[in-house]
């Protein structure tokens, strides 16, 4: 049975894939379905959902279309989540490979730095970083990556430690390859699978961290974010709780989709590797 068919036979994985597909569709169609500024005022303030079909999810405190904001927010969540996870995986894989392959003092220094990053609560670090550099999409991505690269680094290092003793690495040494070339061309690619297996957890964590940062007012002020929408709705929590609840549900479904699909992919590919 091919991995794809195995994936399709796991109900949880399919549910995750559907959730993710819906999110991606939302992000891609945001400017087609809701052209113009999603932060523009389009109707009366605090219109409840399902009252006016031109504004299906109602409006917020300032009369902005909640559905339009939700679609544009999907974009930010997805972009930040993927970019931060990619940055964390790349940095983690490189640091882990260097530490594991070089050994000795390099390993010691790199791992103490990793320890230091794991000792400071990553959310506090992200908070400090954004407040120092100023909130923008790129800064938020870096801030999140700062706290998440350590996991992939440890996994990559552990994997490299076992790979570097293999025969083909000794062979590469004998033919006179540069150690850095061996590390990054021969060892790193083979150490990647367990690192990549972490990506769904990291994407999910990145999306949640972005939401928490923008909830505290440290997101990119020029973009709609789900965390920002929840914070915005908090002011009218008593009278219009849906304003906070709706974007929160979108967040939960997104993160759940990432977890389920990620778990499905890891499980189906792991089984395939086990069989071959």
């Amino acid at each position, binding site marked *: 049975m091919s991995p794809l068919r195995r994936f399709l036979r796991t109900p*949880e994985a399919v549910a995750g894939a559907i959730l993710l597909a819906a999110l991606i569709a939302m992000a891609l169609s945001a400017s087609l379905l809701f052209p113009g500024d999603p932060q523009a005022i389009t109707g009366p303030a605090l219109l409840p959902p399902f009252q006016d079909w031109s504004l299906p999810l109602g409006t917020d405190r300032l009369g902005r279309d909640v559905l339009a904001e939700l679609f544009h927010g999907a974009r930010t969540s997805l972009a930040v989540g993927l970019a931060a996870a990619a940055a964390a995986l790349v940095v983690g894989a490189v640091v882990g490979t260097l530490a594991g392959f070089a050994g000795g003092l390099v390993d010691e220094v790199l791992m*103490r*730095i990793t*320890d*230091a990053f*794991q*000792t*400071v*609560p*990553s*959310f*506090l*670090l992200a*908070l*400090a*970083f954004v*407040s*120092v*550099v100023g909130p923008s999409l790129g800064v938020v991505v870096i801030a999140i990556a700062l706290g998440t690269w*350590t*996991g*992939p680094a*440890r*996994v990559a290092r*552990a994997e490299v430690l076992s790979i570097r003793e293999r025969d083909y690495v000794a062979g590469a040494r004998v033919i006179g390859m540069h150690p850095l070339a061996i590390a990054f061309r021969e060892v790193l690619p083979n150490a990647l699978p*367990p690192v990549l*297996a*972490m990506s769904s*957890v990291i994407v*999910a*964590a990145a999306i*949640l961290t972005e*939401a*928490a940062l923008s*909830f*505290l007012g*440290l997101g990119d002020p020029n973009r709609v974010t789900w*965390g920002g929408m*929840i914070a915005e709705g*908090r002011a009218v*929590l*008593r009278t219009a*709780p849906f304003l*906070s*609840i709706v974007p*929160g549900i979108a*967040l*939960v*479904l997104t*993160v*759940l989709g990432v*977890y*389920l699909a990620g778990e499905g992919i890891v499980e189906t590919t792991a089984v395939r590797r086990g069989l071959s």
Partner: protein
Amino acid sequence: MSGRTEGGAQARHLSWATQCQASDAPMTRALTLIRRRLVGSIFVLLIVVVGTFLLLEAAPGDAVDAYIVSTGGDAGMIELLRHRWGLDQSELTRLANYLWVLLHLDLGQSVTFSRPIRDVILERLPNTLLLMVSATALSFGLGSALGIYAGARPGSFRDRFLSIGSLALYAVPGFWLGLVLIVVFAVDLRWLPIGGIETLASDKTGLDRAADIAIHLVLPVSALGFIYLALYLRMMRAGMAEVWRQDFVLAARAKGLSRRRIVLAHVARNALLPLVTMLGLQSAQMLGGSVVIESVFSVPGLGRLAQEAVASRDTPLLLGIILTSAVLVIVINLLVDIAYAFLDPRVGAGEADA
């Protein structure tokens, strides 16, 4: 986070096992462990101090700017303050000064509070600790109990239901869960207070005050604890699945022990140890999570202080908070490791062989 923590747990276990090889009694093992860990921690803390100092140094504006914004003052005043607070010296000198001050367990002066930073932090720390400890107890206790319940019958309906349900819970942002809890239990039902750590301007003392604080903590602790419950549940379940396959479980079955006894005394007990390591690794996450939860529930703790420091650009205060958290994480991990040294009999057995 499961991948990251499992790898970490494994690495930690190995290093810990090698660290303790030289001695036999748990007490001596624990002491050796403490010594080695403290030496390692000093380097880690040094990296944290220097790194954070340099990061916050890059911030536009300094304490004087923040002070002048709040009080007003002219150029001469700015010059005078910069000189008095040592801000006109080079970066390296100030870093050295800061390290020197730190050695005296001092954190400097807060501009916004006009008080020693150490005092401000020590005043807020108990609230955060209370929140963290309660949330950890909730997530660890309920999570491992549900994990045992699910793992007792692998593959059953309740196992699948609990593992999917916990995953869904793990996908919930803590601050949002907090708001939903506020809407349901504080606004609609009016059962619990909406925020704060205790009723303001009440002269409650002793048990009354403790009860008051406990009632205020129900919602924030639930918001923080329920998220991480899933982690312990899933870890317990996975650990039990592994233990089920081992020979001593078969032996226990052959002895004719009841299923209940096998699950509790043999399978769950052996699967519990990795969860203890997890407690330490989770502490940094919990501290980070409490920043947002404290903001949602207006709990005057360390996390809320960090947010205030960010808002008022009080860099030395933020630096002090980050350092305090790092020390806290190190201490918690050390305590967890010591607990582990007393809990795990396997290392002792291994040493007897060696």
